[in-house]
């Protein structure tokens, strides 16, 4: 009884104290987000602060860590060289605040709430649900949420998302690039399609169909799907093998299934040309274990130079990238995920926008960011560029088709 009373008393005193503190504090809430002498939050005459919420723990921590390391590497090097010269004549250092959301939408929103009072813009974060979670809030707060890594098209629709822009090609962009290559081959091909039964797989297939539209030489002979939770696709591969198709379009995001598909088709002695999405086409993790050299060609798409590939070992871009990543991004190995390169490019694209900004405001920044065309960011492959002014397209929408050559990928102009 006594203890209970004691607790009750403490609680009541704490509450009353809290209320009186608030009253004394005067409750003056300045919440205008912008306008301290015209400049937006997060920017001064000498610094600009960018916020990132991305998975730094959990299953997606690998790519997530890269999204921070890449942009830190880029701006670390730029700051060391004196800073970034903005369009309004001032030179500013770029600071990055990154928080872990563990791929949890709720945490991403909480991180955004925490950051929005001190950062100029949100950038580089990875994940569709996590970026979606604070999209509407960012719009109503007028906080830019740009060059985020998601294939969700809503981020590129200026009427729905006025303060957003995503960085990477959407799934249909990838499928379409391969479709176009097939269509331009001039020879007849039969295509078998196996796709994941969700918006990921549907996006690829939609792109493929758009790419081969009107091409009489290409015929899709069979379309099958699998569930992301499936542990085997042997049945589907067997069914597709029976069609005798000479091209296999495999829109798959699960690493073990991609390896198993490559192996199963070989067991059945079915050896078509093979297409894999950019995120499941790693030579070391998928193609070697799947013995991909048995096939006449394995194709994928990309827009970034792969530092691991021998073809780029002496490339000056790649060398600078790797040294910046080590020195400023605290990332010591050669990155296993493309997100390190993408995030580094995001840094370069942001710098472009900064040099075009004539006023230190978020609105002016969005205008500057949307005015970049044919910019070749470091690490970009020939044939790709940054175009931010096209509505409903991400900053990088162009990809080039690449073919596996036994050790890495090389860009190809023609199919076959």
């Amino acid at each position: 009884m006594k203890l209970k009373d004691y607790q009750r008393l403490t609680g009541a005193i704490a509450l009353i104290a809290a209320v009186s503190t608030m009253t004394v504090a005067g409750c003056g809430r300045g919440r205008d987000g912008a306008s301290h002498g015209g400049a937006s939050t997060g920017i001064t005459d000498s610094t600009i602060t960018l916020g990132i919420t991305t998975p730094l723990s959990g299953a997606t921590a690998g790519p997530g860590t890269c999204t921070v390391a890449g942009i830190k590497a880029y701006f670390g090097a730029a700051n060391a060289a004196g800073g970034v010269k903005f369009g309004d004549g001032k030179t500013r250092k770029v600071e990055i605040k990154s928080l872990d959301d563990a791929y949890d939408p709720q945490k991403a929103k909480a991180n955004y709430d925490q950051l929005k009072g001190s950062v100029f813009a949100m950038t580089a974060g990875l994940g569709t649900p996590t970026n979606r979670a604070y999209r509407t809030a960012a719009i109503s707060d007028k906080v830019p949420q740009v060059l985020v890594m998601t294939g969700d098209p809503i981020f590129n629709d200026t009427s729905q998302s006025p303060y957003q822009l995503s960085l990477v090609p959407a799934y249909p962009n990838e499928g379409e690039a391969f479709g176009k290559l097939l269509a331009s081959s001039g020879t007849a091909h039969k295509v078998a399609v196996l796709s994941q039964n969700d918006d990921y797989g549907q996006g690829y297939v939609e792109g493929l169909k758009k790419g081969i539209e009107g091409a009489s030489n290409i015929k899709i002979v069979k379309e099958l799907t699998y569930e992301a939770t499936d542990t085997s696709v042997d049945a589907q591969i067997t069914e597709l093998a029976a069609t005798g198709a000479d091209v296999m379009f495999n829109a798959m995001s699960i690493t073990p299934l991609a390896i198993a598909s490559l192996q199963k088709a070989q067991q059945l002695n079915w050896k078509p040309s093979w297409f894999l999405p950019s995120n499941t086409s790693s030579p070391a993790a998928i193609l070697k274990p799947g013995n991909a050299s048995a096939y006449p060609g394995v194709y994928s798409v990309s827009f970034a130079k792969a530092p691991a590939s021998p073809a780029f070992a002496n490339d000056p871009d790649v060398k600078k990238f790797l040294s910046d990543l080590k020195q400023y991004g605290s990332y010591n190995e050669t990155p296993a995920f493309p997100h390190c390169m993408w995030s580094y490019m995001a840094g370069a694209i942001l710098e472009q926008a900064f040099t075009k900004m004539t006023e230190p405001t978020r609105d002016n920044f969005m205008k500057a960011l949307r005015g970049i065309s044919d910019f070749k960011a470091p690490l970009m492959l020939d044939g790709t560029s940054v175009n931010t002014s096209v509505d409903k397209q991400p900053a990088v929408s162009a990809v080039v088709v690449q073919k596996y050559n036994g050790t890495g990928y090389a860009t190809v102009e023609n199919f076959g």
Partner: protein
Amino acid sequence: MFRSPGLFSRAWVRRAITAIAVIAVLAVPLGFDEYTNQNLARIGVFAVAVLGLNVVMGYTGQVSLGQIFFVGVGAYVTAYGATHGWNIGVVLVASILIPGVIGLLVALAAARLGGLAIAMLTLALPIVGVPLAKRLSDYTGGSQGLSSAFSSAPEWSGLYNDQWQLYVVLVVGGAVFLLTRNLVRGKYGRAFAIVKSNEAVAASMGISPYRYKVLAFTVASLIGGVSGFLYMAVVQFTSPETLSLGHSVTLLASMVIGGSASIVGSLLGGAYYVLAPQLANHVDPNTTELLQGALLLLVLFLLPGGLVSLPRVIARKLRRNRPTGGADRQQSSSGAPARGRKAVEEAPTMSGIPTGRPE
């Protein structure tokens, strides 16, 4: 420990304190800055979820790993209703009833099983829930999820959105806390406690363990639905990620850390769920999981009864340091024997009754 005994037992004093506390709580949203309000609202959301888990697990002793599923269903129902222009009252009721009905159906099967089998069955809920939410994309928006800003502050209120949302959480969450407090302190609470400590004894006293397990599970899923409604009101977005199993495990950890079988412990659990990741992010964003793990172990080692036992532990320490006060010592060392409703609130293990199983 100077206090005048009796003062706080007087009805008018208690009533006055309650009134002041309610006024203080209602003043909170007006006084804090936006970020604090948003954090308090989030704490409210997960405190309700932990409270639901506490009903089935803390009070009734049935391990449930499926609580996040009911939160997710509540959130999806709310999002669906709000985007289709349903009346907000209908949305609230639906977001409570639908998870409740699902919970009842699951419980009818699950409660027939004993011990860890219930844990296994409830474990399946989030595992089934995530692909299901992706699959039913006509209702759930698929893996891209659903957004709904239905909880923006209405014009007439003159409030900011974060203040309005915190009021929604305070009113709805407060009502749930009050109802649950009454539930677990009354005859149902006593029945839950006996089912928890020994089912055979419960049955011999005319309390059907099966019926009370089903009841506790259903109440937990109803409360999960409320939490889902509040989740949508505060986060304004839900996706299959919301239902992922990892969050269910974190909810369970939060319940243990806050204090099992305790109303205040549920609040503290909610605070842990929301604040621990933020604290870890503050220290080092690259090692959040590690830091949270360390925090979990620290609490379990130092305060096995959860954060809610902290004042008790401190009071005991203080008393021990004083040489006199034999009466006090006697009272504290006897723990909290079964003393009616008080025992249900304060003693998670019902030490007065011998337990049949080593739980």
